[in-house]
């Protein structure tokens, strides 16, 4: 089931969702077995910001019916720390590397894109636009205009594929069209749905960050519609994700028009989920082509 994503050859159509798999930490837990049976056909890094961030105060997690709210707050080493410490190690993974970046201004995004794109370890970049533009106050990915203007700012900086990761918290089709018109090479969706939980002890919001993002099977049917509508509206590739837990879920997204499928929260339950889903998928296609 070899696949192509914006010219990058992938051994199968299953990658990870940004921020849901830390290949370096996983190697600490699982050793080289991780590399020998790497679960994804490309690796997407956690979102990197210009400066280091320590993330949100705990608690950061809340389990919901068939889902998970996270309020992690993008802890990361910042651009320089990432380039110096993590990128060389991620470059040694047996699959192409996609680096996810997020800024709160065009300047920040420009710094991130040019800093990351010039590194040869990097096959593609993902722009995480679920962030406010501090100048306008608008969430970039909720606005077609903001998204287009961000693309205008960063598109000239690199020839490497730019994937724009949409938020599901506003209708995604107009934003996807804006991203395509601004030169994006692919769209990925969905990011998490804004959500919250109350402390069962009555002490107000449970999460240290106040609110967070919902993922997992609870959002699967929402993701499937957004992916299918975006895939119908643009002609660039779509990376579909949201609640994928089985080959059947992945097949639904492919049928809905995704070129590639990403697995997020399911990896928490089964660290090798990506591998399992890829093989369930190829068994399905094997069966259906022979049947």
């Amino acid at each position, binding site marked *: 089931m070899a696949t192509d994503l914006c010219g990058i050859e992938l051994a199968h159509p299953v990658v990870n969702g940004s921020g849901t798999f830390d290949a370096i*930490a996983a190697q*600490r*837990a699982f050793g080289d*077995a991780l590399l020998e049976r790497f679960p994804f056909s490309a690796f997407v890094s956690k979102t990197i910001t210009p400066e280091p961030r320590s993330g949100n105060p*705990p608690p950061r*997690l809340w389990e919901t019916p068939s889902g998970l709210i*996270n309020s992690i707050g993008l802890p990361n080493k910042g651009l320089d720390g990432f380039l110096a410490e993590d990128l060389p190690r991620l470059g040694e993974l047996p699959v192409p590397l996609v680096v996810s970046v997020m800024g709160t201004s065009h300047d920040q995004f420009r710094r991130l894109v040019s800093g990351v794109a010039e590194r040869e370890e990097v096959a593609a970049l993902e722009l995480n636009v679920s962030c406010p533009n501090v100048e306008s106050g608008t969430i970039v990915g909720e606005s077609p205009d903001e998204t287009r203007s961000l693309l205008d700012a960063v598109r000239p900086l690199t020839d490497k594929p730019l994937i724009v990761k949409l938020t599901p918290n506003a209708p995604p089709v107009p934003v996807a069209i804006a991203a395509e018109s601004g030169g994006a090479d692919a769209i990925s969706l969905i990011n998490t749905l804004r959500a919250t939980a109350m402390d069962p002890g009555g002490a107000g919001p449970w999460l240290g960050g106040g609110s967070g993002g919902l993922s*997992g099977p609870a959002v699967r049917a929402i993701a499937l519609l957004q992916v299918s509508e975006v895939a119908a509206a643009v002609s660039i590739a779509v990376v579909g994700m949201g609640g994928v837990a089985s080959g059947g879920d992945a097949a639904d997204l492919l049928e809905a028009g995704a070129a590639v499928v990403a697995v997020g929260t399911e990896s928490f339950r*089964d660290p090798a989920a990506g*591998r399992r889903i890829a093989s369930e998928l190829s068994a399905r296609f094997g069966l259906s082509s022979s049947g």
Partner: protein
Amino acid sequence: MSGKPGIAEQGPTLDDGRPLAPFGRRACRVTRNIASGGYRIFSAVDPEGPDPAAGQFYMLAAESGWAAEDGRPYLARAFSVADSDPEGDRVRLDFLVQGVGPGTGRLCSLQEGERLWVHGPLGRPFGVPREAVPGAHGAILVGGGIGIAPLALWRRRLAAAGVPTRVLLGFRDRERSGGLDLFRCSELKVASEDGHQGHRGYVTELLEVMLRGDDADGAVVYACGPPAMLEAVRLLCAERGVACELAMEAPMACGFGACFGCAVPLAEGGYMRLCVDGPVVRGADLATALVPGGGH
């Protein structure tokens, strides 16, 4: 490979000598499930895993009937290994579980022959006294409630390594007690808040007495229990200049560093991921043991 002689020698290990987990999750058959005080002890046979080090944990989910309460539990749950026994190629793992919600409730009801999804062993284990403090030779184990689980295995491993070990355990009441069976043949002092066994009061009162005497010299304190108890231990040890290692809890979604959910505040600022940089942490490294959301 910096193996810890006599403690966790087998299996592939990385930097701090922790045994590595096989990659991915696997199904393990449950071989027994017995009551122990107010808790349950169940055993599962791991067909693949290495012998875990004391202080490590596993992520567990019942193969069937998970998600059975209003769609929860959805994620696997973290459990310290309370005892382990290699049996040929396999390892028998014992867990001590207190039913507090849908996940622990389902695990408490496991029947012999049912299967568990397991990934692990995970995390940083306890370190022998001389690694924590050069020249230290004795161990004081302080457990509270369900927190006695990892100490049970640790006591066995310390005994095998010939480290002199004293054990202090505390329980709130009869309903929230159990696991004493895992401490057969230990030098043991028990406290209970309702006085149903041993000293009436907190286990940290027993520790305070012990630390006040000279006999705490050259000992390292290993503690696991509710946040308030761990915080008391941490402060007591800091005050007395005694090294301590705390086995902590935080909400965990993955257990292997993937989700960044298990943040615990560091003394130096920022957070660690408890699942990879813990669950056993040095008292001195912590800003506090009172981590919001970190335990009941």
